[in-house]
């Protein structure tokens, strides 16, 4: 385990991810037949789109890293590759330890069954055993503040309640690495504060955190380090405060007028 500490709990070496954009591919047979020559040609000349381009990054155990950048710059792709949900086109990824990915709260929740049943299934999907899930259930329910609603079908939940339960399950899956993708923007301010307080607690316990966010204030607050991605390339890597500043001044230069941060 100590060699992991030296190398970093997450190591990306020259990672690139290419998606092929299928330009104007015919959607039905008639169009396909009528445009057969161009169809065959266009399929061969699929346009490559590099979502990540030669990214190297090493994250040490216990570090909390903010990933910032404009929409479509590859932030989510980066998280999905670290979470092993997508394979890099080239390069290597090494992750030591158990990962919990909060890419979407309550993925797999079913509206027709109760919050309790969904919480158990979701926890097992995220990597707990049924026994562990059952043990942590009281904690999860308490955190979600759902009270008696926990035994109601989830279709009766408000979207806020849905998010609360999703977050409560995800953070109670004990992991070495927590990946958070812009999921905290939802929910009311009070619950957001609670989530951040919980993430802070996990950080104090030595959990490595990778946070993708457009909320630059929270990146500065919660991350020791930040990276700026643009067009799939890693532009700057450093302490969160200067990186955020540089990002803001780039935006300012681009728009040509000062942005209040």
């Amino acid at each position, binding site marked *: 385990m100590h060699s992991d500490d030296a190398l970093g709990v997450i190591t990306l070496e020259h990672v690139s991810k290419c998606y092929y954009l299928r330009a104007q591919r015919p959607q039905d047979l008639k169009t396909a037949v009528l445009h057969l020559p161009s169809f065959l040609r266009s399929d061969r000349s699929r346009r490559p789109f590099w979502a990540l381009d030669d990214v190297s990054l090493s994250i040490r155990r216990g570090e909390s890293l903010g990933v910032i950048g404009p929409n479509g710059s590859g932030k989510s792709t980066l998280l999905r590759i670290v979470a092993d949900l997508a*394979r890099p086109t080239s390069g290597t990824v090494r992750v030591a330890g158990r990962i919990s990915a909060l890419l979407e709260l309550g*993925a797999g929740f079913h509206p027709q069954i109760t919050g309790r049943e969904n919480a158990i*299934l979701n926890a097992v999907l995220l*990597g707990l055993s049924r026994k562990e899930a059952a043990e942590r259930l009281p904690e999860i329910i308490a955190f979600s503040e759902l009270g008696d609603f926990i035994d109601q079908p989830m279709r009766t939940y408000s979207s806020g309640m849905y998010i609360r339960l999703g977050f409560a399950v995800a953070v109670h899956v004990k992991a070495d690495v927590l990946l958070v993708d812009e999921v905290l923007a939802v929910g009311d301010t009070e619950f957001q504060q609670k989530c951040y307080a919980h993430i802070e607690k996990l950080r104090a316990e030595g959990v490595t955190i990778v946070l993708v966010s457009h909320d630059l204030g929270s990146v500065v607050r919660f991350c020791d380090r930040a990276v700026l991605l643009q067009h799939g390339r890693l532009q700057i890597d450093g302490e969160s405060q200067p990186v955020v500043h540089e990002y803001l001044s780039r935006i300012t230069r681009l728009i040509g007028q000062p942005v209040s941060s």
Partner: protein
Amino acid sequence: MIGEVAAIALERFRRTWELLYLLTARELKLRYQDTVLGFVWSVIKPLLLGLVLYLILGHVAKIQTDIPLQLVILPALFPWSWFQTSAIMAAPAIANNGNLIKKVHFPRYVLPFSTVANNMVHFLLTIPIIMIFVLASGRQPNYTWLIGIPVLALVELVLLLGVVLFISAIDVYFRDLEHLLEVLLNLAFYMTPIIYPLSTLGRYQNVALLNPMASLIEAWRNLFVRNELPTPMDLWPCLVGMAAAVLIGSFVFGRLERGFADAL
């Protein structure tokens, strides 16, 4: 080192098993939720389908069989329904769960497998109906059922697991398969000795046996109606089909699985 590897493998197996159990339990629960009759539908639906076939074949087409017509149809129809419904339901099992596949890391094959398990439960619930019809015709089920049912159910289960791996993986890239499959399964329904015994085919029996389901359905019927245990000699086309389905299914699934998250 070996102990560590074994522990990890065991941990993975346990997780997959628990996930399969929870997903199957959820599907079972959801299937007849908000219906008045609930699980009774599992029994009524195949029975009504059997009744329709009985009326058409017995009173409209007036076919002649050496055993009572209801005993030709029901003991074959119910295991067939397990196969057909599983295949149709499992085809979009991966393709329809894109959101889950893209956001959560878990063994993907539990999705198609859980539909097979779900339909197996429904099939097992219909066995008492077969038993009632067998008893009503004056036959006595004996110990062979206790051996034959688990053996044939296991063969059909493994065959189905291979089949659903294949079709659920292909369906991600080729969703026409769902529609194609419905037509093919309808065709297979008539090519499999379900509404007629295999013997009616005379010298074409050997051709019909190329279909792996043919020998399996015939074995189910012989078990329920004649208390005959299947032998490997009777079942070999199905066993070969089963082995092929598992090999091809897991190979194709393993190959295509990597691209699921990107394709959905």
